[in-house]
């Protein structure tokens, strides 16, 4: 494995919130650009298929990738370009909202691939922004079946899982004495002296409301406005304990300025690499399952290039490198057994089967999204 792929990415692509992205954009995008420029020699436009295989790699040409920053092992991108002679054009976004907004512009855009998170797959599909996939060109044998056929795309007509994760609570057990096992424990602990004012909530509306809904054993995908408003009231009261709305404050948590925060398991791992005493838990009863997916855009300039890239990136060796680089599990079956032992804190990358069974993907209800945003703004305002 290329040693560069084992470097811990401090600004891992996924979940770079808008806030975080402001800082990460320069570094991440720049690195990708450099990687992309590494071997962009050929630019002939001939896309050919190897005889007898519909999944062969396209040669030459250009692939336009619209994705999260620093989301692929640099050696994978380099090797892909060296192998295929394809020129990689990489543009990055900081949030699914941005990805959707740009694809949804009247003039359209010319990306071949976009990598939305699960809840945005149906949103993009219903706006006719995604192409229906030709399953004969996808190497499904390299995809863990537990990630297929999920609620956001029941037949994987539009999306192929790339990697996935969850959110949970990272906390400093030296300060947060009572162990966090349930979302209600998190809410209760936040009010305690020594903890209040040192808590961070997600900068994602649905997740912030989700905490209160999960704590009461409710479905976080409810479209019942009364339930959502009640959840918002719980979080508005809780807001006075909040230091910041930030899902990626690595230095805040490791310095002790923040003693309890909601983060993805990948972010928790980054924090634990710097401060071993931290604890990460996926509280009962439920939490989020997010899956980032390869999708081909409806007006992709070169569909063959898109299939070629997906095929290449799904190869087991490449998925392993991606996993080590981004710190989130990729879609490869039995990934945990195959990932090299020298990946630091490798066990923290994975979600145990019993935890995985409790995870629920988010569903966007367009009709109430405005009210959800409004409620979230009120929670933010209550924290000031």
């Amino acid at each position, binding site marked *: 494995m290329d040693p560069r792929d084992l470097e811990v990415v401090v600004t891992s692509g996924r979940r770079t919130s808008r806030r975080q992205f402001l800082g990460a954009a320069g570094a991440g995008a720049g690195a990708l650009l450099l990687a992309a420029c590494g071997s962009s020699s050929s630019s002939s436009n001939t896309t050919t298929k190897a005889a007898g295989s519909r999944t062969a790699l396209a040669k030459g040409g250009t692939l336009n990738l619209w994705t999260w920053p620093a989301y692929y092992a640099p050696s994978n991108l380099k090797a892909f370009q060296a192998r295929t002679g394809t020129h990689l054009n990489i543009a990055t976004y900081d949030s699914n909202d941005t990805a959707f907004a740009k694809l949804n512009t009247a003039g359209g855009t010319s990306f071949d691939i976009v990598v939305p998170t699960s809840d945005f797959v149906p949103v993009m599909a219903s706006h006719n922004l995604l192409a229906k996939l030709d399953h004969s060109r996808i190497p499904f044998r390299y995809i863990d079946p537990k990630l297929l056929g999920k609620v956001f795309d029941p037949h994987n007509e539009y999306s192929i899982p790339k990697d996935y994760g969850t959110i949970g609570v990272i906390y400093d057990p030296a300060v947060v004495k009572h162990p966090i096992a349930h979302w209600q424990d998190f809410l209760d602990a936040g009010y305690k002296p020594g903890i209040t004012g040192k808590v961070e909530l997600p900068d994602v509306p649905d997740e912030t409301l989700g905490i209160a809904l999960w704590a009461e054993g409710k479905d976080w995908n409810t479209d019942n406005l009364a339930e959502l408003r009640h959840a918002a009231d719980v979080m508005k009261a809780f807001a006075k304990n909040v230091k*910041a709305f930030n899902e990626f404050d690595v230095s805040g948590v490791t310095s002790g*300025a923040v003693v309890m925060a909601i983060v993805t398991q990948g972010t928790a791992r980054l924090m634990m690499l710097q401060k071993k005493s931290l604890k990460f838990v996926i509280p009962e009863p439920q939490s989020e399952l997010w899956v980032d997916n390869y999708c081909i855009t409806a007006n992709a300039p070169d569909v063959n290039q898109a299939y070629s890239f997906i095929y290449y990136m799904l190869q087991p060796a490449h998925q392993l490198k991606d996993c080590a680089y981004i710190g989130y599990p990729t879609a490869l079956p039995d990934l945990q057994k195959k990932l090299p032992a020298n990946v630091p804190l490798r066990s923290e990358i994975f979600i145990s089967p019993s935890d995985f069974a409790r995870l629920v993907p988010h569903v966007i209800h367009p009709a109430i999204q405005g009210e959800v945003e409004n409620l979230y703004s009120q929670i933010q305002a209550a924290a000031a």
Partner: protein
Amino acid sequence: MEASTVSAGGRARTASAASAFGRAVLALSPLAWLTILFVVPLGFTLVYAFAHATYGGVQIGFTWTNFKQALSGFYLSIFLRTLRFAATGTLLCFVVATPLAYFIARKIKRWRGLFIVLLLIPFWTSFLIRTLAWETLLAPNGPIRDALNFLQLHHGLLNVLDTPTAVFIGIVYGYLPLMALPLYVAFERIPSELTEASSDLGSGRLGTFFRVTLPLARPGIAAGWLLTFVPMTGEYVIPALLGGDKGVLMGGLIADQYLTAQNFALGSAMAVLILAVLGAFVFVLIRATGGFKLVPQ
């Protein structure tokens, strides 16, 4: 405009169709620039503000719903909060920039150019990078903490980041040159005879400053207020980075309406409201300064 008149006068006799065409291009290109990049988007915003909202789009029509929503309860309070925020930021910038600009304009002779360059140097670095630098400086275990601890002025972690204090430090830092430069120009142009006359007539130094210098610098003050207040009403980077994204301002709210809520109509209505308030603000400033007229020489 003056330049083109001069050249037209000088070579009027030999002016060919080509040069007339050249002048037309010269005159029209800024107009086209403004039209395409300002007027057209503004037109869209206006049309959207009166349209019916759909998720990720609009249905063209005419309704006051968006404005009613933008001026209802919570949004109205954020609107007022934003105006208070921008006014506070502007005032802080003004208080800090006035002595600075006065010092450079009236007290420094030899190194004045250097001071102006020092004032402008921050612009060579991206605004984002500079704001992020403050995030590092103000971090609970950052260099400012270390310095204060070393000087025995503070003990333990620094609790400034993610507070309003950090936000206003960032605001004053970010907008200071925009306030200081017009003030500098205004102070610099006030003839020294006037201040001398003031002291000859028995006014002290403070009296001269407040009753002669400051009133004469009115156009510079107005320009400084304009250059800081207007962008501050749309500010959302500094509160997000240094304020922990707590509290909400119109800039972030509009961005969220467009991106997260995918409600272009409401976002547009909010933008139009801000434009209306800023328009009124500019109008008042123009009236108060007689059209930003410079000090009589």
